[in-house]
């Protein structure tokens, strides 16, 4: 845990953070709003005291209620990995600005997140499905995607046609079986 990184982040980003800077083991986590994302990343990249030059990962997360995008950064100035979480994206129309203007290499990762979660990255020049066929309609990594056989857990929940939306069961208020407090 790098305490100086915490104080620096609090000083530089101040009100752009939507929550406290969380630290655990070798990871530091901050949360920002979608609208602030580009500015925050630019500050992190350009600031001489932060200099997060390497983008390690871009991914989407479905918490069961809302969607998130998560970015992992590395800097020579700190021994910690920095994680930026953009949360609170609505399930119906998740939109987040693309960071391809800063890291063009994020293009395919954003395509993957779009393919798997349906998150629309505004500004990505080539936002189309990357793994799934072009006529595919659902988003497989979302929690409401019905898995054909619940995987390795024994006698499957039925081998079904692969793309069948999860049918809500009468009497339950919502169709997602697992959620996480994000």
């Amino acid at each position: 845990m790098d305490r100086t990184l915490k104080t620096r982040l609090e000083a530089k980003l101040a009100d752009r953070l939507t929550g406290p800077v969380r630290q655990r083991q070798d990871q530091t986590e901050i949360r920002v709003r979608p609208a602030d994302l580009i500015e925050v990343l630019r500050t992190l990249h350009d600031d001489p005291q932060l200099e997060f030059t390497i983008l390690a990962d871009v991914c989407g997360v479905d918490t069961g209620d809302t969607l998130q995008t998560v970015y992992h950064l590395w800097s020579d100035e700190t021994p910690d990995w920095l994680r930026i979480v953009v949360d609170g994206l609505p399930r119906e129309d998740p939109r987040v600005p693309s960071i391809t203007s800063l890291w063009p290499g994020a293009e395919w990762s954003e395509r993957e997140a779009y393919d798997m979660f349906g998150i629309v990255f505004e500004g990505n020049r080539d936002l189309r499905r990357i793994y799934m066929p072009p006529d595919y309609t659902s988003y497989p990594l979302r929690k409401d995607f019905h898995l054909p056989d619940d995987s390795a857990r024994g006698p499957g929940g039925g081998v079904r046609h692969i793309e069948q939306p999860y049918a809500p069961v009468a009497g339950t208020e919502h169709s997602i079986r697992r959620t996480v407090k994000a």
Partner: protein
Amino acid sequence: MTTIPGMGLVRGMGLTLSRFFQPKATIMWPEQQADVAPKFRGRLQLLYDEYGTLKCETCFQCAQACPIECIDMGGMDTRGRFHVHWGPAETYGERREESAARRSGRPVADATFDRFDAIDLAAVDEVLDAHDYDPKALLPMLEQIQAAYGYLPVAALKQLSRKSGAWYAYVYGSATSYRHLRLEPPTVAAAAPAGEAHRAAEAGYLASLDAALSGKAGA
């Protein structure tokens, strides 16, 4: 790169020529078998006894012991109740066509398959809550689940396994070993004639056969 142009090419050719005369690395399989490490773990296979009978008794102990549940079992359980299939259905001959039809997206009329459908699991969760998710209280939990549903749906067993952390093999083994627990709904027997309807021609043939055989006695 070397200073003299072409020298690298010549040296490369020298290397290949020297390799031309060296002993070869090929193993002449099958005359010569590869040197396999004693720890090598290859394919699983079942053993036969000296009378040629399969030694496996479908006791599920291996499946329970396997840390990553890579062992699959297929066949009838010891009480001859129904087919048990773990893993991909197409590995078992008798289910192959059915599975192929299902994967093609066509509807398959199969009463036994309904037991794998998703159900309302609120009752299971209540039972689990009441017993503090403790797998030690497996039998009371199974009994209460059966009381709630009338039988033990597979989805309920899976939920029980997932929430309590007990291996599915363990849960399933317990559920099948007690006579008062049942995995099929009590109405399955009533549903059997409905299954006959799928085989209309056969039913008609059976009816006529029945008439031909018992007609004299009936009349």
